[in-house]
């Protein structure tokens, strides 16, 4: 994978920082869970960090991002607030949503995540309807597994009929929790988008520069022509669905690891710097008092 190595070497410091922040944040979460310092559940985006990092400069401050259960990277790539997110997950002072939302229910500026598959697509269509004509858009992240939900098709139908500025980002990591895509999805996502006459692009690369170059004109068209699009990333989930629940065979995991950008950034100065930074954030947030929820 010399191509991948070159691509990682060619990243801007800003992009690499963002990638590393997400990677070390997620790894820290898994360690905190193992140590019993976090309860509940979490879904890390290990291996998929490059998607929100690539999208980040294509989004405007007045765009809405609708995220899902696997949303830490989406938030960090956009707002970078690792202490606030960790405090939210740990229920500590400074939490983005007072610790009420937790890992998968976060509303911060124009970022909103929910925990039910497919639920946010119709909501995103409503928000996009409101944004239509302003140049802003609604970006909604879904997985391959989300395409099992009827709400997806109801929403795409309306998005196409009403021509709302909706950017659907599909992170097709080949597996829905424990069920491989070929066992849960008939046909293709491309064909499903085509059924609604929606443009669809499939991006198998992890190269951030290539992704941006491909997407920039398409995202501009979403804004200017108010035409929804479906962007499908072929990606890899490196980690478990949640925690310690990975049942994939070793060969599959090896393939996922081979595609991992981090192999080419590990051990570098920036890697060590961000690792230390996240370590300090974990220490700081862990020492904070519990969050307080002031009920309406």
């Amino acid at each position, binding site marked *: 994978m010399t191509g991948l190595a070159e691509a990682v070497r060619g990243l801007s410091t800003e992009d690499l920082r963002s990638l590393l922040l997400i990677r070390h944040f997620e790894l820290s979460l898994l360690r905190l869970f193992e140590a019993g310092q976090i309860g509940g559940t979490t879904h890390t985006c290990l291996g998929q960090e490059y998607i929100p990092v690539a999208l980040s400069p294509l989004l405007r401050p007045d765009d809405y991002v609708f995220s899902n259960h696997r949303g830490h990277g989406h938030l960090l790539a956009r707002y970078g607030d690792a202490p606030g997110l960790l405090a939210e997950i740990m229920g500590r002072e400074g939490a983005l949503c007072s*610790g009420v939302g937790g890992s998968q*229910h976060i509303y911060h500026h124009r970022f909103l995540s929910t925990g039910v598959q497919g639920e*946010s*697509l*119709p909501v995103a269509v409503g928000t996009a309807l409101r944004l239509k004509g302003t140049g802003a858009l609604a970006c909604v992240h879904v997985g391959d597994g989300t395409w099992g939900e009827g*709400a997806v098709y109801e*929403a795409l139908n309306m998005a196409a009929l009403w021509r709302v500025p909706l950017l659907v980002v599909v992170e097709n990591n080949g597996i829905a929790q424990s069920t491989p895509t070929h066992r849960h999805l008939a046909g293709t996502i491309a064909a499903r988008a085509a059924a609604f006459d929606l443009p669809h692009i499939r991006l198998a690369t992890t190269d951030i520069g290539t992704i941006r170059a491909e997407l920039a004109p398409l995202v501009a068209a979403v804004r200017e022509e108010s035409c929804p699009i479906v962007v499908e990333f072929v990606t890899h989930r490196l980690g478990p669905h949640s925690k310690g629940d990975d049942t994939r065979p070793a060969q599959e995991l090896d393939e996922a690891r081979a595609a991992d950008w981090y192999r080419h950034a590990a051990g570098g100065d920036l890697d060590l710097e961000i690792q230390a930074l996240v370590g300090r954030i974990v220490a700081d947030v862990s020492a904070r008092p519990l969050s307080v929820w002031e009920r309406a």
Partner: protein
Amino acid sequence: MTDVADARQSAAREGAVQGPAPRVAEHLNRALHDLLEADPDLHVLGEDITDPYGGAFKITKGLSTRFGDRVRSTPISEGAITGVGAGLALAGAKAIVEIMFADFVTLAFDQLANFAAKSTAMYGRPVPVPLIVRCPSGGNRGYGATHSQSPQKHFIGIPGLRVYELTPFHDATRLLAGMLEQGLPCLLFEDKVLYTRRMFEAGPLFRVGFAGRGAYPGDEVARVSLDGGGEPDCTLIVPGGVAHRALAAAEDLLMEHEVVCEILVPSRLHPLPELLPASRHVVVAEESTAGGTWGADVAAALHSRMWPALRKPVTLVSSADSVIPAAAHLEREVLLQPGDIRRAVLETVT
């Protein structure tokens, strides 16, 4: 008694002062016109709601002609249009979504219970979601099992979700404006037979007042009482769709049995408004099928608050525990009728 004054003003605006009061359907349609005119951020969505059709029950007639894209006919997607309404509301607009038959609101349960209602609080701070989901409900029209239900009870007790029912006594403009003002998603059930009745009328024997002050406009409880009567023998508590059946029962009880009833009609079903019966016998009547009902919630509240004052536990009367048949004679056997209310009152007061 500001509500009564408002109601009269509303009637005057509709040019109905000299003639009969408007029918409930016309009154609600007028309210939607007024709300859309007053608020350029308000949207109305639903299946087949635009002109010339104007909605299955014509409640949205004329709206799309006057207000263009803010009134939108949608695909047959109850779940998603409820989500679209929530998305509009989150982004600073307001939305009224019509579900063609209340039976189909089950398809929007996830959007209502898991998204719209939770979003108001699960992000740790109050998030306004000004959304009304209108649901034409109830039977006695021969539509059969899947077009006749009163599913209010399934939505009782969902944090963040308010449940209302249209009544013949509450001014609809005021009621809907009050619902939007709260910034919480609200369900509004609208009895389909009530659509055909006239607003503000309780017959020659009864007068209508309002008890208590609601937190929001339209939250007050309508009190229908015998003109010049003293302490009633029985208090009937009913949602708006049962008001006319309760009136018919109350008239009959007075004429045939000399039993004096008052009728309390709240517009808000959940959370319960303060219900203040003037008598020591209480009957709650609703069209929902039996089991896990709104009335059980009312009874629990009254028992804990006024147990020593009650002569008997609150009596609950509802439709039977049954699917709703299509044939008129069979439907009547299942659904709550005035005779069921009359019988329940007689058994309670004697």
